């Protein structure tokens, strides 16, 4: 879980071609890796926890001045490289500075209150994070579905037909009565009446058939319509085409551009 930067005690480390004799204690990061390095920390507390562990410091007795200066050195380095640091990192710096100041200038105990170590809160937060990291590590070690174990997928089965809906005759009667009340009606039409003596269906069918027979090539739907058809003409023309197809006088063909075309055999 913990990031493992290169061990600074490792002998013979070279930075930009120069051999480093003395490494800054607990601070050294290969310069080019700083960006990646900061990415590996989940936040300022994580960086702090790493510094403390790195220095083998006691979480309950943190040398705040030392940790703060190391922490600030990282931030300075990051700023130097124009790395964008989350504001959380700056807040942490401010908090560390405050703790340092309170250690240097202890508030005199009032009314016999026990002087609380200003590092107490920091230690508690670090312990919380350490706990979370332990838990995150434990989760990470768990087997995972689809990597370490598999569940059977849902197996299909023959579905039975749905049971019929709950409906009884009384309901149908009520419904019909409601309809009767809603629309007192004259006679039910025998069907759609198209009253257009100038443009009857039969006439249009004849015209279309003659057109298709004469051109001897498939015609697009738009080509079958007269110029500027009104809704009635459009409707009757479409009906006529469909009726001709139904009577197998015309054939429906898929056109080149995805539209339908009709042709006479």
């Amino acid at each position, binding site marked *: 879980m913990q990031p493992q930067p290169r061990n600074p005690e490792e002998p013979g480390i070279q930075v930009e071609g120069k051999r480093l004799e003395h490494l800054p204690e607990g601070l050294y990061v290969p310069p080019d890796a700083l960006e990646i390095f900061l990415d590996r920390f989940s936040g300022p507390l994580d960086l702090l926890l790493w510094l403390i562990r790195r220095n083998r410091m006691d979480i309950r007795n943190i040398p705040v001045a030392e940790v703060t200066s190391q922490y600030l050195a990282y931030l300075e380095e990051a700023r130097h490289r124009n790395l964008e640091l989350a504001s959380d990192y700056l807040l942490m710096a401010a908090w560390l500075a405050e703790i340092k100041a309170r250690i240097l200038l202890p508030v005199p105990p009032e009314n016999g209150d026990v002087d609380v170590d200003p590092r107490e809160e920091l230690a508690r937060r670090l312990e919380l994070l350490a706990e979370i990291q332990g838990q995150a590590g434990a989760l990470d070690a768990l087997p995972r579905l689809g990597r370490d174990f*598999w*569940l*059977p*997928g*849902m*197996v*299909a*089965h*023959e*579905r*039975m037909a*749905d*049971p*019929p*809906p*709950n*409906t*009884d*005759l*009384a*309901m*149908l*009667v009520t*419904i*019909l*009565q409601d*309809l*009767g*009340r*809603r*629309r*007192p*009606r004259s006679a*039910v*039409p*025998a*069907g*759609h009446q*198209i009253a257009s003596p100038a443009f009857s*269906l039969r006439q249009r069918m004849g015209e279309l058939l003659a057109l298709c027979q004469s051109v001897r090539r498939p015609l697009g739907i738009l080509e079958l319509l007269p110029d500027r058809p009104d809704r009635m003409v459009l409707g009757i023309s479409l*009906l006529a085409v469909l009726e001709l197809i139904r009577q197998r006088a015309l054939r429906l063909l898929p056109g080149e551009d995805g539209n339908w075309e009709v042709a006479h055999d």
Partner: protein
Amino acid sequence: MQNLSPIQEAILAILLAAGAPVDRSRLGSILSEFHPGVRWEAALEELCAYGYGPLQVLWTNSGCHLRIHARHSALLASLELQKPRPLSRAALETLAVIAYHQPVTRPEIEHWRGVSVSSGILQQLQDLQWIGTAGTRDSPGRPALWTTTPEFLQHFGLPDLGALPPTGLSSPESTT
């Protein structure tokens, strides 16, 4: 089938985990990697022939897959907690119009209901096998004529259409 050979267990494990048809070449390449030299085709054929407990092994165009044997269909239907769903108001109205005014065309149903009838409703009633078409009206467009079916009568316990309860609507001034 009672005893699985290791290769048959492997085949079932693959099909169970895949949860979808696995094609022959993929099945073959994995099986021959893990069980080199074993004749997996024969093992699979045996599985297809006998199944394994509630599982059937089937081939389709898209590959080999599993299915639960049809003898469990009734049991599994109750797993789906199928409660009879009530019909929508629109479906009920459509059914009522067809039942009492059959044979009727779709435009006529729309006339009675005062709103258009969606194809979905007619399809739903057809899926229930309660309505069907019986010829067409000899008018432009030749609209289909809708009627109720023998299944409709059976479902509602009617000997014939004459046994439909009166609606009191036959005379215009009647109100209930």
